[in-house]
């Protein structure tokens, strides 16, 4: 019974307008986001004496203090502080007395007045390329602020705690989040390049970027597939006839869920395969043996749990609520998940959509691979749990249980 049901569901999905919109939006989004970038320079071996080899994260306390103080000066100059209090971006603006407090903290940390610090910043940037991309200076040299000579790291952390007390929680000045980046050396860049060739085999690096973009769509689009399927019985007034059938709830819901999963995932894998192709060629041209199956490994390991959980949540909410509110609720949840991302590269934690908005950084990726694996396993299990819940709800509804008002609204005669 299961396979015939599954194939019938697939055929029905293939005839649905929602599915075609899903395909069109997915294809348009991925091709528009991924066709622009030319990442071939990342796949070229670095040479000694280059002007820049990029940046890496630093644990140097002095550098962290210099970098954080510079960031504080910049944000105070704009009076605009980026925070993530409920894991959602919130821009904070301070009043005059609060600004004065921040300036005082800066003075204690640097021994200089705010005006002096601003002068230093202006002097720094006037010497370099002023072009900005949406407000972020893209000059090659990073602006740093020298801390006071006798300032210890612990004192600095305490000062930053006071800053957080003024700005609010979720800012970049929280002591646990303090970070800095330093320029890579030729040796660092060469090591990265070798890792990209040997560990990533080139295609793996590109597939991570693909997963980064595809993940955004897979947190939103499948909501509509799931909701449409679950509301279909109600729209067609076919609930009673289907409920009275011998097929178990697991078979009915399972075939619907798996069919939607299959039909939603298939184009993702196909697009991944197609977009990977130029990089197969590029790798071979550079004398590197590519990972031909990278598209499949990353699609299944990275994207599939996201798709599974989004679809499962859509199923469970729609079966429970029984109308379009399920869609609205889940859309908000999805946007919150996207806004939850505090880093565009790594720091996977338990984010629904793991981000890796770059090509390469192979060593950093493999250092966090364990974290990613736990994350994906968590969402896989969550998807299974939500699916199970959907089956239970469907079964209960089938036996005359209701979830609203405590009355059987169809009671007649």
């Amino acid at each position, binding site marked *: 019974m299961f396979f015939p049901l599954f194939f019938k569901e697939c055929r029905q999905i293939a005839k649905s307008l929602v599915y075609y919109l899903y395909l069109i939006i997915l294809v348009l989004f991925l091709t528009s986001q991924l066709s622009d970038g030319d990442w071939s320079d990342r796949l070229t071996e670095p040479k000694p004496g280059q002007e820049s080899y990029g940046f890496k994260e630093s644990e140097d306390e002095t550098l962290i203090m210099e970098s954080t103080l510079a960031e504080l000066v910049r944000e105070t100059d704009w009076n605009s502080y980026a925070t993530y209090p409920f894991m959602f971006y919130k821009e904070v603006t301070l009043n005059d007395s609060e600004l004065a407090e921040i300036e005082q903290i800066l003075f204690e940390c640097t021994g200089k007045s705010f005006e002096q610090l601003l002068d230093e910043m202006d002097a720094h940037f006037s010497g370099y390329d002023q072009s900005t991309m949406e407000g972020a200076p893209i000059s090659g040299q990073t602006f740093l602020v020298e801390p006071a000579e006798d300032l210890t790291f612990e004192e600095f952390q305490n000062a930053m705690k006071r800053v957080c007390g003024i700005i609010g929680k979720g800012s970049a000045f929280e002591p646990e989040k303090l970070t800095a980046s330093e320029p890579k050396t030729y040796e660092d860049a060469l090591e990265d390049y070798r890792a990209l060739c040997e560990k990533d085999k080139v295609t793996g690096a590109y597939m991570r970027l693909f997963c980064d973009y595809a993940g955004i769509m897979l947190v939103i689009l499948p909501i509509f597939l799931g909701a449409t399927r679950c509301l279909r019985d109600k729209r067609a007034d*076919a609930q009673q006839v289907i409920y*009275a059938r011998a097929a178990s709830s697991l078979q009915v819901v399972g075939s619907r869920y798996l069919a939607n999963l299959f039909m939603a995932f298939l184009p993702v894998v196909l697009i991944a395969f197609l977009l990977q192709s130029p990089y197969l060629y590029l790798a071979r041209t550079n004398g590197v043996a590519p990972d031909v199956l990278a598209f499949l490994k990353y699609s299944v390991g990275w994207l599939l749990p996201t798709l599974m959980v989004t679809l499962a949540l859509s199923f469970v909410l729609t079966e429970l609520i029984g109308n379009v509110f399920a869609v609205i609720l889940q859309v908000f949840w999805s946007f919150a998940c996207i806004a939850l991302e505090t880093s565009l590269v790594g720091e996977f934690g338990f984010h629904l959509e793991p981000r890796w908005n770059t090509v390469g950084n192979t060593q950093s990726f493999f250092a966090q691979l364990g974290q990613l694996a736990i994350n994906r396993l968590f969402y896989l299990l969550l998807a299974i749990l939500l699916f199970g819940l959907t089956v239970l709800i469907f079964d209960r509804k089938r036996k005359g249980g209701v979830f609203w008002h405590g009355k059987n609204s169809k009671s007649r005669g």
Partner: protein
Amino acid sequence: METGIEIKNLSKQFGKKQALSDVNLTIERGMFGLLGPNGAGKTTLMKIITTLTKKSSGEVRICGIPVEECKRVRQITGYLPQDFSMYGNMNAYEALDYLAVLSGMEKEERKKLVPEMLEKVNLTEQKRTKVRAMSGGMKRRLGIAQAIIHNPKVIVVDEPTAGLDPEERVRFRNLLCEVAKDRVVILSTHIVGDIEATCERIAVLNNGSIIFDGTVSGLLKLAEGKVYSAEVSTMELPKLREKYQITGMLTNGSLTHVKMIAQTKPLPEAKACAPDVEDAYMYLMQQGGVC
């Protein structure tokens, strides 16, 4: 009981409303009619039998299987709901095939039976017609086809002829009689003519309770001597309506031939006549279910 339904002390409550109250019924092979006004509890009873609603108390067994064993009961029951519909974009063949899959039928079996069923309900020509384009009669025929395709032992049909034209109604009744030869068919309706034409045994439900359980002839006997016919002036009709329950009327100019229910002869010129099922039903309802 291997082929039949046993219902003992069945009750169902929806919040404060008592939909069914201490219902006791034994339904054997053949056509069984369930009559009653709107809101009597017929659909609730149907849904309990087909496992779509849980009972509050009592016992229900379908061919010896307790109704709590949903999967087993669903394997042997077929249900045609009052407002049957299917996915609009499926055609008749696809819809029937889909529901047959849900009934656990294998591919070979379906390949053989789906066309047979469509033939049986006279939908072969419309097998490629989409459900949303079907007339009410066609949908009903598709409905009965899906209710019987998996050869159930018990078939429950809820108001199957509502909205059908007379010809289709007759065809439907004949089809139901045919399938009832070796299984239980419960026909729930408030169209008395359906009962008259097809059922030997009936039960009448009112306000959640069984007020009559027996044969059609038994119901007719109740109303014997209580039904009268007379020819009256059309002007007298309103007065007559106030006093008696009129069950039939045929106006011919200034005169009207009426049939009415009365304990005793209502008019000097009235003659006692043999009651039909509708008369008997109306008499029963009038008596408040005392039988």
